[in-house]
């Protein structure tokens, strides 16, 4: 199966700001890896997909009890920029 990769589109989806040279380099490498990965097509038959928890777990519920969370100040200290108890980011929308 020939593998077509629009590497610039993929990098954009992944929020990776790569240079043209880097994009070409990764495109070449991904082609080689995907050629190998395409061997998944060699599987014979169409087995039912069963990729559940190996020990058969379905859902994990716990009592809805109040318990301490991480300290807000301690968490915010680790952020690149904060103000008034909030994380600060550059504009996300153009106004």
């Amino acid at each position, binding site marked *: 199966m020939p593998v077509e990769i629009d590497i610039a589109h993929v990098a954009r989806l992944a929020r990776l700001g790569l240079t043209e040279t880097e994009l070409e380099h990764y495109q070449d490498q991904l082609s080689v890896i995907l050629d190998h990965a395409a061997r998944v097509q060699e599987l014979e038959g169409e087995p039912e997909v069963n990729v559940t928890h190996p020990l058969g777990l379905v859902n994990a519920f716990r009592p809805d009890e109040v318990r301490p969370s991480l300290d807000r100040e301690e968490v915010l200290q680790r952020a690149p920029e904060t103000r008034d108890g909030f994380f600060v980011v550059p504009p*996300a929308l*153009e106004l």
Partner: protein
Amino acid sequence: MDIIPIAKAAELLRDGSLTATDLLERVLKVAADTEAQIHAYLTIDRTGAFEAAAQADSELASGVDRGPLHGIPVAVKDNMATRGLETTASSQILSGYVPPYDATVVTRLREGGAVIVGKTNLDEFAMGSSTENSAYGPTYNPWDITRIPGGSSGGSAAAVATGSALVGLGSDTGGSIRQPASLTGVVGMKPTYGTVSRYGLIAFASSLDQIGPLSLTVLDSALTLQAIWGHDPLDATSYRGEYPDPVAGIGHGVEGLRVGVVKELAGEGYEPDVDEYVSSMVEQLRAAGAGVVEVSLPTFDIALSAYYLIAPAECSANLARFDGIRYGLREAGDTTEEMMSRTRAAGFGPEVTRRILLGTYALSAGYYDAFYGQAQRVRSAIREDFARAYGQVDVLVSPTSPTVAFKAGERTKDPLAMYLSDICTIPCNLSGDPAISVPIGLDSQGLPIGFQVMAPALGEPMMYRVAAAVEQLAGFDARPELELVAT
């Protein structure tokens, strides 16, 4: 001091001939003598470790006994959160990050009286098979410092092999505990998925990641597992049922057990010395009374292909959290998207970038079914192959790695060659079953060879039973010739 197993250290700590503080001083001396060559650690926490050792000593003196890890120096892979101690996952994007909480395994180590020596090197975000993909420089193999120790838990493996810790914790997504154990001549074990909490483990591929021990002996491995596993409400995939006793089978031999030799994990691509040692061990198991049969698991031939779609797909989703907002690196940008794109390009190394791109592609519109969907079908078929095999045999065996430790730099330019390092270990991650690597000898160049024992889910007692027999039959007691201790 000779390097001693934790089971032996535990005796000495209790008969008063050794203190936890002495033991810590000795491993720190080994670290001081070897770290310039080996670079197993990213951070050594002298202050915290001496405090923990002093507490372990005063508790033992007053009759408080926290079990097999009490007073034992442990190395923790740097992708497990340690409160107050820098945790980087070997990535620039987390440079300087100090977690505000402990991973559950770290809590269990502390509750068990263990002394955390420091944080060990890994391939960035545990992606790699050589510990060369670390933003802070590679780790080297104590058996030959021109070679790599395997990966991604190469730092913990090298620490145990050199004696700068008595036991280490690693994480295993496609072989990252077992392959470095094999390449450094120590025991490395990946438990059944869901039995060791992943809370506080920096996620790579959540359906595959599992924390486990690296140790000098099989018994040490079982004792460490016993201390760290168990249900954790903070991990939604944590197993809630009964846990077997991992130590129970050790010493019971293999008479009457059925051992399956995996047909697909031998032959072309395997070093002759590796094949020869593995075949010889199989014969010894037969001579010791095991029934040995060859078992074919045809889907193993395409397991690697499925893994390199599933693991990157999960990685691309998990690593989306590194966005320059809440913690870690931030590169300036005029918009949020520009800031994120610049931060991630600057913060992730080449292998992590490659896998994020690969995973994003495999999940993207138009390719999802051909790649990710088909990989999930292969994963299901692998499970069916395992189920069929375990209908005939108690355990499956194979080499842990097709080769011994390779030269530093040998595979860094060829990602696919690096990926092939994990061909024997990946199937058990895809199935979720436990597996262990036990050292069985040295090849003609003096490099360690590992033997893998696989068992069905929650089959740890059987796996350890066979592993202990393998250990005894192999009688492997060689140590690296690096000058270790100058006491």
